[in-house]
């Protein structure tokens, strides 16, 4: 019995060590901040759209896939899938997460894709463990057999009364809405035992650059509906260009 006890202790120790960051590694703290016209956005607060229409944003989230550090022709993946769920934390809608066990060095830049890659999108939330960002069925749409890659919601008042009559709901998904990013060659230094901050801004005005929100206030990426697919494509393109490293 004693030898089994030792074995269990040894395995438990290995398990714990396996979860801990090595002292020789570095970390990245990724922050995402939503902005509108350059200013941090608070969910539920009123802003002005292009022609002065009052607009509020209530939900902003999207999947980032294969976030990697670039070094020459090599890519070091630091996250396979991250669900960026922007929530109000004090001063503005923001998201933060930490990636550990990153080999120190100076990298040439970073790259990521937007959406859920096919290899992961082929499974349903029930197949993922509860600690996976892919386990939440709120972000899966059975009718598409796909995760909802991005959800952007809010309301707009388009007739100068006190009511927000127009519901804004852009839900993108399915493989055709997946967007491959191109490397951003901004050097990133990872230092042994230290955490490097990577702060991204998501400029909402850029997301809607090619969308007329009052006239095209929602799209649920409906198959067989060219207008819906077109809007979702433009939102997907806009979102990719809206995310910028600060």
């Amino acid at each position, binding site marked *: 019995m004693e030898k089994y006890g030792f074995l269990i202790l040894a395995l438990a120790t290995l398990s714990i060590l396996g979860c801990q960051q090595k002292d020789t590694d570095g970390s990245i703290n990724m922050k995402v901040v939503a902005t509108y016209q350059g200013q941090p956005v608070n*969910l*539920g607060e*009123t802003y002005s759209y292009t022609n002065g229409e009052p607009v*509020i944003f*209530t939900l902003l989230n999207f999947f980032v896939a294969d976030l990697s550090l670039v070094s020459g022709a090599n890519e070091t993946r630091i996250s396979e899938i991250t669900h960026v769920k922007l929530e*109000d934390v004090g001063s503005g809608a923001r998201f933060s997460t930490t990636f550990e066990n990153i080999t120190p060095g100076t990298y040439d830049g970073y790259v990521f894709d937007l959406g859920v890659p096919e290899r992961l999108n082929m499974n349903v*939330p*029930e197949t993922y463990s*509860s600690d996976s960002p892919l386990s939440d*069925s*709120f972000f*899966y*749409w*059975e*009718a*598409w057999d796909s995760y909802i890659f991005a959800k952007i*919601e*809010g*309301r707009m008042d388009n007739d100068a009364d006190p*009511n*927000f*009559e127009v*519901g*804004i*709901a852009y839900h993108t998904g399915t493989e055709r809405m997946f967007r491959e990013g191109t490397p951003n060659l901004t050097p990133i230094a990872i230092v042994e035992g230290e955490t490097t901050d990577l702060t991204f801004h998501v400029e909402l005005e850029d997301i809607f650059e090619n969308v007329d929100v009052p006239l095209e*206030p*929602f799209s*649920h*990426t*409906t*198959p*067989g*509906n060219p207008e*819906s697919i077109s809007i979702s494509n433009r939102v997907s393109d806009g979102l990719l260009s809206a995310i910028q490293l600060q």
Partner: protein
Amino acid sequence: MEIPADNPMTEEGIALGRRLFYDPIMSLDSTISCGSCHMPNNGMTDGLALSTGVDGAIGRRSSMMLFNIGYAYNGLFWDGRSPNLEDQALHPIEDINEMKESWPNVIGKLQNHNDYPRRFREAFGISDRDEITKELAAKALAQFQRTLISGNSRYDKNVIRGEGFPEDDEVNGQLMYFFETQGGAASGLEDAECAHCHNGFLLTSNQYFNNGLDEVASLNDFEDLGQGAVTGQTIDNGKFRAPSLRNIALTAPYMHDGRFNTLEEVIDHYDSGGHVAANLDPNMRVLGLTEDEKAYLLAFLNSFTDMEAITNPDFQNPF
């Protein structure tokens, strides 16, 4: 289903939880049990708009449906104030509109009972009746509630598992419910927008929404703040948990305050688009459903009834 590591399911724990669930000893005057408001025949609700507690006290909200509650996440109760079943089970005992009892009294009754100390010993390995606590009682209640699974409705059998064929009206209703599918746009039917809030196997998104029930001048004017009272965020005022629609035909009346007596009234409400507010869910809109389309939706909602779960002997009152 996520089972807490400190509350594994055991036959003894489930059996104890079932007895506690249906035993009115848990209330001040031994008139009300959990089962008073959560009856299998009513889809684990009580058929009332607002539930009745000790001394005829009327609660402020409708009884929630409990089937598949073990799968729920993102808060329990209509307002999400409780993080898990073990915590949730503690609340109704001391709610003056429900059991109006105190936990010390309940524990005293359980410790001095001629049967419960043995059952607690078998379930949790206690060595003395003094070791019975509210936390152990809540764990047993949680174990029983995690067994309340419903997954054998016509929808499950015919649509999810493909064991049979849904009726034509149900197929049309399904297209409207889960509209963004191949065939949805081509069907000529209206998108009923249901699945944004009631999706997945559980037919709930486990999220909180303002579905336009009340007309308010501002978000601070909701009579019942719902989730906003829990989070303290104005944008959450007037939001309530989207309940699972499993067995929905049996859980009338509907909404957090039981304001709608029938599913037809519910469908009419969603068809209207609801009252506009700054936090009205953006997927709420005027639908313009035809009478036929309303009938299709109703047929599909009725296909969620699971009589095997309703009549499951393991879920019934053991007394």
